[in-house]
């Protein structure tokens, strides 16, 4: 990617970073749509021999040979049995029955996580710079499990099975499916054993935001990654016939509109169907659209598809406006005609101008790349939100990372819009989603793993979470673009990833397999359900009281029952105690606790208030006491617990929710 390494501070030279040969010992496995091996992002010059422990290989297919792999791309396999029993044999005129990526998504995520350094990367001149993956010296192994018809669970499990046997250290999965209890969630089940085998598993949180409780992949042994923006944008000016000047974003780089004003229409007014406002296929009347700029609402169909609909109807430009779902979030697309995406406020102003003017006109200027955009990061509107829909007592998402307008490697099979009608071929593309933020964290985890090979996946996850930041340098809280106001831990979890800090977190919450098993006991799972989830025999001790609050997680979620609605959680005017354990991964030090809270309804205290560590890997426990009072159902509030030795801050968000 370009810009995100600098944005994340990876450009800084610090002794904390692992040397490239230890980076070369780390293997990132990507389950996705495959890979385009010819890209320079998979160049292996400068990489030493493949780690001797590696057991994976290069699965040959019609258009994928053994030489497609190298010391960078050290493994490539495809899994299609589940897909083919459902859809019939793969039509190789339509898609490659091989690890080759016909879509682009898999190449994008793989190169984001661990692509080699490629100078002068750009998309049609936008986002120029030196592209590199987060862990640019790590190795990549690709497992193709997603096909034109979808990503089938039986193929995904087979790929996870292979990745563990092959010896990956990180498993990156930018996919999501239905929500269910862990014992019937195939990805959660596979991820448990992967994590138990020392593999860090990161998954995308989902793009169903800003709706609350819209998360995917919420198992506590998975790192669930939401999306934030970068300090980069692609502004394009929009001038209306009344001389109003507005700004949108675009990645269009073709022939620009002339400098003269062009007639402007709203899709909803030039259509013979209800789909006109959304510029759905076939909804626009060519006679009313020809040679005009059309305003289309976002939603209902792919954004790039709307551009095709306008172009096919004879339109010469498009202004794509957000509706209230996405507010002011601007996602840029490489449209096939002059276009600009605008926020809801601008969209409403343009529609008002159209409805109040006899012959409305407009013109769209060329796009540019703008850096140092502030405030950034902001939580992307589409990023799925908490509370955790499966286990409200576990705060999710865990963390956010860059996921909006991310440039990374692309397939040679389709153009940047992915549309069949797009003849362009690019090496890099700019796309958005939690699919993009997940491999960022996968790559960052690979860096931490290279620096601390002995750390467990839980310790790596803890390091990324307790060092994440929740405020800008100004002290202002990270914003949520969906509301325009400060975001909350239900939006960003522990905050935005800060890899440099994660390399030296001071203390970690190092959940063990027994902690995870105790978590399942706290959920009152039967031995059979525990066995289904973990493929281990484990019987919860009847003498032991297992609670979700005592599960050794790096963040806190405290579900409270209002007096009327008492159900599973603690009743709301009560005393609740959570005990957690910290492991020292730094030098001997004494840490003091600080508590910050947004609410008076919960009084908090911590025992002991200081933790003195004399040796590395020494463990110390503490107990947080919450004295809560009743609040109306649906109330949420947040607090923060920090341990600091003056050099490290080990921060945990606390989310209270009254139901």
């Amino acid at each position, binding site marked *: 990617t370009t810009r995100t390494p600098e944005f994340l501070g990876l450009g800084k030279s610090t002794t904390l970073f692992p040397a490239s040969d230890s980076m070369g010992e780390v293997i990132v496995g990507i389950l996705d749509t495959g890979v385009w091996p010819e890209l320079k992002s998979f160049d292996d010059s400068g990489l030493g021999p493949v780690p001797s422990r590696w057991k994976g290989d290069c699965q040959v297919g019609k258009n994928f040979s053994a030489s497609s792999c190298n010391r960078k791309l050290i493994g490539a396999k495809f899994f299609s049995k589940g897909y083919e029993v459902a859809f019939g044999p793969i039509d190789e005129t339509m898609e490659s029955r091989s690890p080759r990526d016909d879509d682009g998504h898999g190449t994008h995520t793989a190169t984001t996580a661990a692509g080699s350094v490629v100078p002068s990367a750009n998309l049609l001149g936008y986002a120029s710079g030196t592209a590199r993956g987060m862990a640019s010296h790590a190795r990549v192994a690709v497992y193709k499990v*997603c096909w034109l018809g979808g990503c*089938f669970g*039986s193929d*995904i499990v*087979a790929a996870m099975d*292979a990745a563990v046997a092959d010896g990956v250290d990180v498993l990156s999965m930018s*996919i999501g499916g239905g929500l269910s209890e862990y014992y019937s969630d195939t990805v959660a089940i596979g991820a448990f054993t992967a994590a138990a085998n020392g593999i860090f598993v990161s998954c*995308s949180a989902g793009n169903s935001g800003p709706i609350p409780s819209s998360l995917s992949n919420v198992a506590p042994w998975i790192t669930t990654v939401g999306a934030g923006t970068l300090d980069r944008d692609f502004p394009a000016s929009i001038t209306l016939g009344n001389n109003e000047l507005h700004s949108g974003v675009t990645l269009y780089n073709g022939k620009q509109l002339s400098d003269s004003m062009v007639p402007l229409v709203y899709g909803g007014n030039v259509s013979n169907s209800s789909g006109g406002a959304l510029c759905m296929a076939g909804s626009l009347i060519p006679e009313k659209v020809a040679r005009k700029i059309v305003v289309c609402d976002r939603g209902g169909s792919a954004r790039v598809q709307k551009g095709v609909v306008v172009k096919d109807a004879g339109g010469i430009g498009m202004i794509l406006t957000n509706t209230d779902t996405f507010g002011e979030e601007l996602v840029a697309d490489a449209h096939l005609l002059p276009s600009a995406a605008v926020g809801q406020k601008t969209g409403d102003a343009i529609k008002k101008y159209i409805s109040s003017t006899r012959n409305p006109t407009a013109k769209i200027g060329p796009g540019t790349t703008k850096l140092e955009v502030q405030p950034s990061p902001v939580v992307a509107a589409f990023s799925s939100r908490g509370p955790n829909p499966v286990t409200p007592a576990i705060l999710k998402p865990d963390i956010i990372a860059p996921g909006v307008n991310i440039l990374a490697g692309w397939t040679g099979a389709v153009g940047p819009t992915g549309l069949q009608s797009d003849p362009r071929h690019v090496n890099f593309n700019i796309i958005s989603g939690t699919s993009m933020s997940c491999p960022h964290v996968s790559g960052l985890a690979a860096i931490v793993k290279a620096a601390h090979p002995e750390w467990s996946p839980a310790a790596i996850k803890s390091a990324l979470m307790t060092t994440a930041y929740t405020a800008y340098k100004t002290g202002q809280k990270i914003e949520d673009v969906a509301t325009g106001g400060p975001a909350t831990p239900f939006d960003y979890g522990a905050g935005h990833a800060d890899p440099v800090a994660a390399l030296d977190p001071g203390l970690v919450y190092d959940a063990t397999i027994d902690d995870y098993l105790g978590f399942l006991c706290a959920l009152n799972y039967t031995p059979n359900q525990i*066995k289904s989830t973990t493929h281990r025999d484990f019987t919860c001790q009847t003498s032991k009281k297992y609670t979700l609050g005592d599960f050794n997680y790096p963040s806190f979620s405290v579900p409270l029952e209002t007096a009327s609605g008492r159900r599973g959680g603690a009743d709301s005017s009560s005393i609740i105690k959570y005990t957690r354990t910290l492991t020292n991964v730094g030098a001997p030090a004494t840490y003091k606790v600080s508590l910050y809270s947004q609410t008076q309804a919960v009084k908090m205290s911590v025992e002991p208030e200081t933790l003195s560590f004399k040796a590395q890997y020494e463990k110390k426990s503490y107990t947080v006491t919450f004295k809560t009072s009743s609040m109306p159902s649906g109330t949420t509030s947040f607090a923060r617990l920090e341990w600091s030795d003056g050099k490290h801050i080990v921060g945990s968000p606390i989310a209270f929710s009254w139901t």
Partner: protein
Amino acid sequence: EEKIQKAKRTYIVHVDKSNMPETFTDHALWYDSSLKSVSDSASVLYRYENVVHGYSTMLTTEEAEALGEQPGILSVLPEVIYELH
């Protein structure tokens, strides 16, 4: 209703490896035999050894329910289709 009952779909069968019935010496034979006892046409799609113990196969709803009753079978989960985020 009849059609739905007859329609086959892919299931992921989680087995309790440590409880393989004594009559079998090999998991593959156990899997094949357990399948044959509920369906004369089903076959193993994938065998899983590492992150999951078990296999995937195509069954009707009825066959899946019958298989789930067998000793050593932990769960028979209908396959979920995931999407890219």
